[in-house]
C-alpha cells in the first residue's frame, strides 16, 4: 500500500493570535486529517481553529540558499523605522 499522505498542522491558540505550526500527522484525506489533528493536537483546548495543509504543497526555502535568498533584505535597512533619524521634539511619530 502507498504511504498515507503527510499533513502539516497549524493551530490558532486563541482568538486574536495567528495560526502556528504545531506538528504533522498522516491521514488519507483532508477531512480525516482535520479530525486526527483535533484528537492529536487539541486534546486540552489548545486551539480554537485548525488548518491542515498537505506537506507536499509547502514549498520551503532551503538553508543552503539562505544567505543569498534573504540577502535583498539585508541591504534595505531603510525598511526599518529605526533607520530614520527623528529630529528632537517631534511627537506622535
Amino acid at each position, binding site marked *: 500500500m502507498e504511504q498515507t499522505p503527510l499533513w502539516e498542522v497549524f493551530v490558532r491558540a486563541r482568538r486574536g493570535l495567528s495560526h502556528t505550526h504545531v506538528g504533522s500527522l498522516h*491521514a488519507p484525506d483532508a477531512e480525516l486529517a482535520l479530525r486526527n489533528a483535533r484528537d492529536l493536537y487539541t486534546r486540552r483546548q489548545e486551539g480554537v481553529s485548525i488548518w491542515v495543509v498537505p506537506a507536499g504543497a509547502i514549498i520551503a526555502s*532551503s538553508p543552503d540558499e539562505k*544567505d543569498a535568498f534573504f540577502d535583498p533584505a539585508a541591504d534595505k535597512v531603510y525598511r526599518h523605522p529605526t533607520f530614520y533619524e527623528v529630529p528632537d521634539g517631534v511627537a506622535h511619530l
Partner: protein
Amino acid sequence: MYGNDFSAPDDAAGGGLLGEVEAAEAELREAAGRQRRGGPAPDEDLAAYFTEVIDAEQKIEPRDWMPEAYRRTLIRQIAQHAHSEIIGMQPEGNWISRAPSLKRKAILLAKVQDEAGHGLYLYAAAETLGISRDELVRLLLDGRQKYSSIFNYPTLTWADMGAIGWLVDGAAIVNQVPLCRCSYGPYARAMIRVCKEESFHQRQGYEILHTLAHGTPAQQAMAQDAVDRWWYPSLAMFGPPDGNSTHSAQSMAWKIKRFSNDDLRQRFVDMCVQQAEILGLRIPDDDLRWNEERQAYDYTQPDYDELMRVISGDGPCNRERMAHRRAAHADGAWVREAAAAYAAKRAGQKEKVAA
C-alpha cells in the same frame, strides 16, 4: 530556573519539573531570538557550522546539514522513544475495563490516549530526519528497533496503575525533561509537549497510590506490593551505569543527551524518598539512606543483568507485547485500506465534477 544544574530535591517534585519544562520552552524561544545568521556562507565548512550552532545552544532544524551519525543516533533514539509510548499503552490498557470507578476509567482512558498521542508526536519528529512512518512501524514489528524494557513487566493489580504513574512516569519525566533542551529542534519541541502532559500522568498515579495507601489494610498491602515490584525496574529505566553506557559520550557532545544515566537515576531516587514518606509506603531498599557528604541518598542499584535480559527479549511480557502489537496492526489494516479507498473515491468524484 534554568541552566545546567538540577534544582534542589525538595522543590523538584511535581511543580518543580513542570517549571523546568516551562523554563526549557522559554529558553528555546530566547535562543531563537538571539541574533544569528540564517545559514552557512556558500563556501563555509558545513561541519564547522553545525558545531557552531550546537555550541551556541541553538537548534538544528530538519533541512540543515548534519553529520550522518547525528542523524542516525537521533532516528534510533526518537524511534525507540515513540515505540515505547505505543507499547506503553498495553500495560495500562489492561486495566481500563476493570478500573474501580467511572471516574478512574475515564482518567485511565485519557491517559492511554495521551500515550498514543506521544507516540505520534515522536514519530512525526523522527520522520523529519528522512525516515518514513511505514518504515518505523516495520522496524518495531520486526523487532529490529527496541522499546523501553519497563513495558515488559506485567500489571497484576489496580495498584500497578498507581505505581506506573508515580514511578514509571516519574522516571520517564526525569529522563525527558532534559530532552526538552535537545539540540534537534523537532525533538525538543515534541518533548516539551510530552512533558507537560506527563505531569498529569504522574500525579494521577500518585493519587491512586495515596488513596490506596490510606484505605483498608488490604488496599495498603496492594499499594506496597506494587511499589515493591516496580521500584527496581523503574531505576533500571535510566539505563546501564555510566561506565557501560555505549552511546552516552557522543550524545552528550551533540547535546542530544544532557546528563548521564547515573546522574538522572540519583535525581529520581532523591525525589522519590520524600514522596514515598507522604504516601506512607516503603521503598524496598534496606540500604537507602541520606549521605550528608554527597548531599544525596545512597541506594541499591537495580539488577543490570536483569535489565539486559529483558532488553534482549527475555522479560516476563516481551512476547505478549509484540504479539499484541502485531495483531493490532494486522487487525487494523482494513480500517487503513477503507479510509484510503474512500479518499480515492472522493478524489475521483471531485475530478468528475471538475471535468
